[in-house]
């Protein structure tokens, strides 16, 4: 597709379960970002991938959060043993180069932990 694609768009899960969120970046974009946005709030940086370099994981809030990316393609954000405070929209974005240039966001995956 032409834009950043995320799935699922909505996910309701029970506390304690694991969830996987998927992001398909724009083809050819080397940089990929995950951000978290709580209801009505700004964006909280989670993790950044740039090509084959080691990812910047400095924003991951706990060891329950992890993300993988194969080459310059799909990325998966995994949240283990979900908690209610994990409820948020998880936004993925990609860009052709490093931060400072235009980044393109997907529509997000809305996670609700009950």
């Amino acid at each position, binding site marked *: 597709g032409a834009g950043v694609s995320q799935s699922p768009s909505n996910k309701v899960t029970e506390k304690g379960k694991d969830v996987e969120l998927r992001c398909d970046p724009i083809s050819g974009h080397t940089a990929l970002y995950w951000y978290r946005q709580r209801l009505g709030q700004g964006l909280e940086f989670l993790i950044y991938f740039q090509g084959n370099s080691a990812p910047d994981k400095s924003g991951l809030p706990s060891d329950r959060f992890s993300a993988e990316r194969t080459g310059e393609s799909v990325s998966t954000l995994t949240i283990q043993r979900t908690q209610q405070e994990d409820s948020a929209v998880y936004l993925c974005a990609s860009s052709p180069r490093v931060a400072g240039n235009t980044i393109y966001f997907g*529509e997000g995956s809305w996670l609700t932990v009950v």
Partner: protein
Amino acid sequence: TQLLEQSPQFLSIQEGENLTVYCNSSSVFSSLQWYRQEPGEGPVLLVTVVTGGEVKKLKRLTFQFGDARKDSSLHITAAQPGDTGLYLCAGSRTGRRALTFGSGTRLQVQP
């Protein structure tokens, strides 16, 4: 603490009014971007400012980057209901690869 503070957090105005949104920090940014986000969608880039003191205009929107590159403002003239949304500033710092986002300003323009 939030690295980028936006004010006001919420603004409700009538169609035709003018408004200014502020984005402030104690840190210097190499560039600063403004995004607009509508419900159920990801943020969309409006503008990037790079040079201290830079002013950019996008129709009824005027963006300014502070001389010291620590702050920015967004001014909307004659607001329209279509301007309603969440406005986010985001800064890029030297040596930091990911953008740092502000907390956002939620604008509601009443017809």
